[in-house]
């Protein structure tokens, strides 16, 4: 912005004007949304502390809760390995798609557009729709959860990998082509080793994310830790539900710390 101001006063006046306009627009959006959603700002915000107090009173696990530990740990373990395996399977497939779809390595333009469009489609179909469609065909099994996570991850990772490949320096690729390397040599010796650490950190991020999504998918499809939470929550066994919440939080935090360490080590 290279506007000329004749005096500092004018500069500040202009800036205040612009700020006021932005604020008014934001307030209009806010109150419009409040009307549409039927949200009571003050009474709801006032209930937040009460909610937290209620949460800490009823969700604290007691000595009775230990009887639930067995099934909870089993489902938590299943959820963990299902989210890892769905991420890895999706990563393998999206690696192929990304190589075919990235601008720098794509064999042709039609393929490039197809991959982009397909990934965008997979990404934007909501979780609820995925879970329900798959539940209808694959029944209530871990495999349904696996597939729902797999398709969503496929969409995200294809986009992330495509962008990673496109961000690489194209000069190395040109150099390889100039010395007579063929397409596969270019891809396997020039592109993939260079992108490997960024891609691994995307994979680690998706694993974390899938654990969180697995809860929702589980509630909808009746599998894994989400189903168990829903069951305990609906039957007012809040101590067990609280234990699940605590364990999910612990698992996610441990995963986050581990993947930060790994990222630092492979960077």
């Amino acid at each position: 912005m290279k506007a000329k101001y004749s005096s500092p006063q004018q500069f500040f006046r202009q800036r205040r004007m612009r700020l006021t306009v932005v604020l008014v627009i934001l307030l209009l959006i806010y109150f419009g949304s409040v009307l549409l959603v039927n949200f009571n700002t003050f009474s709801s915000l006032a209930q937040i502390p009460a909610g937290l107090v209620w949460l800490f009173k009823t969700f604290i696990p007691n000595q009775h809760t230990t009887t639930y530990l067995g099934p909870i740990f089993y489902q938590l373990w299943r959820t963990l390995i299902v989210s890892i395996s769905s991420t890895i399977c999706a990563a393998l497939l999206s690696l192929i798609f990304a190589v075919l779809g990235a601008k720098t390595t794509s064999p042709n333009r039609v393929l490039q557009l197809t991959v982009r469009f397909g990934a965008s489609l997979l990404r934007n179909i909501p979780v609820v729709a995925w879970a329900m469609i798959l539940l209808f065909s694959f029944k209530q099994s871990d495999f349904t959860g696996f597939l729902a996570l797999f398709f969503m991850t496929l969409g995200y990772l294809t986009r992330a990998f495509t962008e990673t490949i496109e961000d690489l320096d194209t000069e190395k690729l040109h150099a390889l082509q100039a010395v007579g390397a063929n397409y596969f040599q270019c891809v396997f010796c020039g592109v993939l080793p260079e992108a490997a650490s960024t891609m691994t950190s995307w994979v680690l991020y998706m694993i974390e994310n899938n654990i969180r999504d697995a809860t929702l998918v589980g509630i909808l499809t009746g599998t894994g830790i989400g189903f168990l939470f829903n069951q305990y929550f609906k039957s007012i066994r809040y101590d067990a539900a609280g234990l699940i919440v605590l364990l999910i939080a612990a698992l996610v935090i441990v995963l986050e710390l581990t993947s930060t360490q790994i990222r630092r080590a492979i960077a």
Partner: protein
Amino acid sequence: MIENSSSEPKIVKPKVPNTERISLMTKPRLILRSVLAVLGLVTIYSLVTIDMAGLKLKDAFHSLGLNLNAMFLHPNVGQDSWSVLLRGLSTSIALTLLTTLLGAVIAFFIAVFSARNLSPTWVANTLKAVMAFIRSIPTIIWVLIYSAVMGLGANAAVVGLTFHSIAYLVKAYSESIEETPQATIEALKASGVRFWPIIFQAILPSIVPALLSWTFIRFEINFANAVAVGAAAGADDIGYYLFMASGFYFDFHEVGLIVYLLLGFAIILELISMRLRGHYLKSN
């Protein structure tokens, strides 16, 4: 007879200098490979032991194909009407706008206190730990918890979604604030500028692009979450109709139409984000 009396000629061979063996297997590579190997092993184990509930894959994929065909090739409004669905979509969008705005404003003030260069270390660390804990619990669980406290409805959905947005944005914002050079803050402090003017006159203007792009990312996430949460909290948004159509009426034609509506909005969002990113890159 001429005899070569001298003994064998002395041949001086060039000595190979002691070089270190160069290995392409550096430590980061080794760690990378072992991480991938472990993940691969877990994947194989999980795929072998996964519970298929006696599923016949061929039949399942056949019925999946039929359902997808009904969804994407023959969408219609089914039980509800266009006006109901469009109202549901606008409710979802409003829910997203509301939670993102509320989250952004509250998160900014918390972020100021959890940035290491602005507030004491112990305050920053405590706030960051609390936010990490809130972030690690899935949005849907927050919404369920608040719907138990406040009763089903939009209020619980808004509060639950906002909660998670705040925790996410505090991390992003405080990292942006921490990128402001220490010298700027020191200089302003030394010339007697107080706490809030430093933030609103010096720090905020320099990090606005970063804040905007993080907020927009969160907006996209919130839209997906709002749809997902609608069913659980009964907020009367498009997610609720989607859940009813797929879980109760088994009307895949209607599911298809709703998915198309959501896709349309998502594509608009993606176009905006591409333009924003282009604008942001150009101005730098």
